[in-house]
């Protein structure tokens, strides 16, 4: 996309460095002169927000690790020590705990944005799949981090999630024992979760580099879903995209700060302030909010193995989206039917989240089943058929025409 870099450093030192490691030119071509479509809206700022949140989680996580003790007898106490004794420990922990929620909030907006504007379509399939991998890694990281607190919810979340593997026929119990390193969730489990919780964010960072690399090969999609055709269709990353990203990031951080300073426990569960007790299961166990839709799908199905398969499939199916959506028009702007099914899909996802937080009885189970059917039908029936039957609106000739009108 970017063509040859025009980077010519003024300083002698930078010229010397550039001859040996052209990193200045790489940054210049990727984040300064890199052409971005001129019509990007604020939904395109969530990639930058996500990169920022990954940074926040890594920085706060590294300092929390300086005060945390991964042992069943000390973990809960050490977290309370962070809250009460460590200098600014309360702030660092609330930043980290709410940071996870903000990270997932941003990733969900980012993903729905991708679906609405068809950002996964050719040639952006690999870019999208890398995103799905990042999302899976985020889920694993978030889950293991939640376990480290070693409260009641931590312990029973670890028990329920690891037990999902016991549904595998034949080798299920062997795998679960191997995951635990014991006959139940215990100290070996906590230790390995700590090790992996520290590792995975750096794996995420690595895949993020691939994600951005793939993005810079194919270029950004945009609200029209048509590729830039001339220089008039794009603007330089700096100052245009940097300013827009920066502005909305600041707005997003205000929301984040509101959670951290005013309602830091709103998204958590009171039961997780009770130390883990392997002898008593809390009467109502639920995962963190960002896993609730998948939890609802798991519970909607009365068979254990099929329930676990549905849970896995509901996430993995995202990777196949580029081929399930058969329409050649990317953006929902020009797809009137898709747009309605899309918003219904959003409602179903949020609805599944709400149902995941309810006890599995009565009307909640029935609704969860209806919503689960729609969730899968959206991918497996609606998207493949829409591409054949939907009459799309005419596309504009170019991005600049859609922005400035035909006179441009």
């Amino acid at each position, binding site marked *: 996309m970017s063509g040859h870099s025009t980077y010519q450093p003024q300083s002698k030192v930078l010229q010397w460095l550039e001859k040996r490691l052209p990193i200045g030119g790489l940054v210049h071509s990727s984040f300064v002169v890199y052409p971005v479509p001129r019509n990007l809206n604020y939904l395109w700022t969530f990639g930058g927000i996500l990169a920022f949140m990954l940074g926040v989680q890594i920085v706060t996580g590294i300092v929390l690790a300086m005060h945390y003790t991964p042992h069943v007898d000390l973990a809960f106490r050490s977290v309370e020590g962070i809250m009460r004794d460590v200098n600014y420990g309360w702030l660092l922990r609330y930043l980290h705990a709410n940071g996870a929620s903000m990270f997932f909030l941003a990733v969900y907006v980012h993903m729905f944005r991708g679906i609405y504007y068809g950002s996964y379509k050719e040639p952006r399939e690999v870019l999208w799949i890398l995103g799905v991998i990042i999302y899976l890694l985020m889920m694993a990281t978030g889950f293991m981090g939640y376990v480290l607190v070693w409260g009641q919810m931590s312990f*029973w979340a670890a*028990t*329920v999630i*690891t*037990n*999902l593997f*016991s549904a595998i026929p034949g080798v299920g119990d062997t795998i679960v*024992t*191997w*995951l*635990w*390193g*014991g*006959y*139940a969730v*215990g100290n*070996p489990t906590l230790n*390995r979760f700590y090790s992996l919780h520290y590792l995975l964010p750096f794996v995420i960072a690595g895949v993020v580099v691939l994600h951005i690399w793939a993005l810079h090969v194919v270029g950004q999609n945009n609200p029209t879903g048509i590729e830039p055709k001339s220089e008039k269709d794009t603007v330089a990353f700096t100052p245009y995209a940097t300013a827009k990203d920066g502005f909305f990031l600041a707005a997003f951080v205000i929301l984040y700060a509101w959670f951290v300073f005013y309602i830091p426990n709103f998204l958590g569960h009171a039961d997780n302030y009770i130390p883990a007790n*392997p*002898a*008593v*299961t*809390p*009467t*109502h*166990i639920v995962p963190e909010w960002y896993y609730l839709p998948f939890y609802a799908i798991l*519970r909607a199905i*009365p*068979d*254990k*193995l099929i*329930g676990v398969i549905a849970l896995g499939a509901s996430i993995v199916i995202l990777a196949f989206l580029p081929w399930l959506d058969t329409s050649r028009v990317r953006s929902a702007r020009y797809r009137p039917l898709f747009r309605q099914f899309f918003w219904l899909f959003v409602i179903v996802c949020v609805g599944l989240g709400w149902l995941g937080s309810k*006890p*599995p*009885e009565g009307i909640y189970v029935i609704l969860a089943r209806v919503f689960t059917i729609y969730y899968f039908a959206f991918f497996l029936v609606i998207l493949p058929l829409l591409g054949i039957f939907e009459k799309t609106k005419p596309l504009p000739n170019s991005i600049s025409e859609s922005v400035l009108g035909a006179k441009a």
Partner: protein
Amino acid sequence: MNKPPEERASDVTTVSSAEHTRRDFLYIATGAVGAVGAAAALVPLIAQMNPDASTIAAGAPIDVDLAPIADGQIIKVFWRSKPIFISHRTKKDIEEAQTVNVAALPDPEPDSARVKPGHDQWLVVIGICTHLGCIPLPHQGEYDGWFCPCHGSQYDTSGRIRRGPAPKNLALPPYKFVSDTKIQIG
């Protein structure tokens, strides 16, 4: 070896595609040794995650004295970090467990297969819901047995699944009667 460069280049392509050479042998041998080495390295890396020696040692059999358990009482003991329910069943409990139509159960098992012969009043089960591992609550649910608070599975007085998402009856731990009032679990 002293041919002009262009002939040498064509030699290389014909030789490597047509016949086996020492280079092919080295290539395959190196790959094979590498694959075996990588597989061997995986063994300790994977095996270290299984229960270690101290965990296994701590899982030795335990003795439980049944004498203090009152009629109708259910106690919970831990063996290998798992809760074990020991239920001193009443006449009514036993009758309910034995008169069920076994064929109609989700996981058909007669009550006689779940207790030791001659010890009908003692039911010993692993107190872990076979759905996703929560601990069911005793004396609750519609079948006078256990009720799992997580996803609503219900078990009867024989620890058999009657309703809800759990696929199997509560598991039986290995145990034996050392005397009429003492069992050894493990």
